[in-house]
């Protein structure tokens, strides 16, 4: 286990160096959710029945979750790139713990995400979003969000090792863009037709978005929702546990497979 910790830390350091060496790429990635917040918040916000400011406060947690789900694409792209460039094979020939490489990548990605939350929430504050609940609950919301990101990154790492294709990761980008559209990240699901509402509420993003809104005190848990949304914190934790239990071992096995 100490081997895993040592190697994992080394690999974490590598990923953070990559970020430091390519600040432009990171800044570009971080401006995307801010742009969407302003765009959706003011364009959609003026068309919805909900008052604009209230919608923007509703949207901030939704966009946080949608951005976290992008970990699938980021994780996939990075591990596919490593395979493609031969870095993965070089690491595989070293006496390095098999789980260290994907673990280092997932932790680094989560740290970068955590740093990216700050400017986004500052813009959120500027457009009317507030922490209405306790500070402890708000910290819980951030922790939950990062856990979700961590889980999503493992999905991506597995897919990247599986497809070995940066192009496929790019294609998946459009698919992950659809994920929040079929959830309550951007719109409340209350008025959707029954079957569609159920489908949207069983989307993991819905549980996490609802939990964030609940913990930040931005919007109440909707009535008559499916179980993961009706019990958003438990539902989110359950989703993260399931995703991690499935994809982390798959990714490690895929990485170690000779």
């Amino acid at each position: 286990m100490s081997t895993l910790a040592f190697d994992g830390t080394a690999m974490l350091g590598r990923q953070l160096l990559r970020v430091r060496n390519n600040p432009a790429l990171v800044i570009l990635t971080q401006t995307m959710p801010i742009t969407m917040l302003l765009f959706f918040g003011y364009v959609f916000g003026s068309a919805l029945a909900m008052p604009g400011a209230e919608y923007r406060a509703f949207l901030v947690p939704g966009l946080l979750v949608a951005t976290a789900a992008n970990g699938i694409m980021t994780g996939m792209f990075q591990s596919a790139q490593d395979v493609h460039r031969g870095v993965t094979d070089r690491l595989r020939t070293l006496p390095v713990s098999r789980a260290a490489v994907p673990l280092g990548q997932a932790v680094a990605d989560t740290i970068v995400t955590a740093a990216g939350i700050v400017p986004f929430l500052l813009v959120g504050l500027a457009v009317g979003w507030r922490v209405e609940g306790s500070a402890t609950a708000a910290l819980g919301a951030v922790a939950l969000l990062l856990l979700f990101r961590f889980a999503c990154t493992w999905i991506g790492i597995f897919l990247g090792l599986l497809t070995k294709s940066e192009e496929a990761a790019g294609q998946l980008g459009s698919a992950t863009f659809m994920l929040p559209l079929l959830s309550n990240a951007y719109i409340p699901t209350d008025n959707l037709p029954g079957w569609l509402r159920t489908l949207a509420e069983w989307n993991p993003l819905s549980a996490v978005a609802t939990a964030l809104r609940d913990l930040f005190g931005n919007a109440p848990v909707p009535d008559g929702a499916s179980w993961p949304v009706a019990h958003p914190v438990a539902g989110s934790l359950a989703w993260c546990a399931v995703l991690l239990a499935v994809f982390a071992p798959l990714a490690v096995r895929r990485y170690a497979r000779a």
Partner: protein
Amino acid sequence: MTSTYAVLSEGLEKRFGEVRALRGLDLAVQRGTVCGLLGPNGAGKTTAVRLLTTLLRPDAGSARIAGYDLVREAAAVRGAIAVTGQYASVDGDLTGRQNLRLFARLHRTRDPGGRATELLARFGLTEAADRPASTYSGGMRRRLDLAASLIRRPEVLFLDEPTTGLDPASRSDIWDAVRELKQDGTTVLLTTQYLEEADQLADDIALVDSGRVAHTGSPRELKALIGSYAEVVVADPDVLTQAAGVLDQLTGTEPTFDHERAAVGAVTRDSTLTLPRLVRELDAAGVPLLDATLRPPTLDEVFLRLTADQEVAV
């Protein structure tokens, strides 16, 4: 670990779908020697290296690397080897120094920064040390790859086409590094498409063709396998046939013509055939000679000949 072989494989097989990339690879590399795996594209050289470095699992056969079983003791094998190749590369997003420090840390080197500085200097990369590796030229990149393999002295170093695509100066840098490593006692297994490279570096050459080792031997032995090459250039094209007749008698093999140069040549395994005798016999037959040579064949000629023989045998 009393084995005298650093790499010993028996009947390694690997199949990718319908393609049988390796069909029973037998290889024995003595400790402290340089072995060249020589063969055309698609012969199975890279697959062989990927198997021997634990990157692929063999479908059949077995191998011991530095005394460890390739499959059952894969972790120990990884501790004893280093690999450099097109597919096993450093991280272009990191600088040369950052790469070497990372690999030094993964190797549990006591002073990763110091080791990185040392290797950067040894491979002439000090000036470029703090630039991203993606900005390096092909030669610099390959030197950095090699430096990353030498963080800790490996027992066996695998180099997959270490100089493909490099300019002559960079190629000779890599060659010097390989010679130094051999002096330090490192076993080197290198694959190459360049016969000159194998001739320059390798103590033993394994000719790989269609997923098998077709022939093994020192460069000298492989050349002796097909003997010497006698060639004469005549003053008058009309006597070319006459010269060919003499050559045929002397060598016992069918001569090949080069009409443009008014030359004719033949391979001989007869060690009593000397240049003076060749000249005397041709002179006695009244052939006006401009030039006559008797030389060992180049590895190109050996290779073309031996693989052609294989095709006939199949």
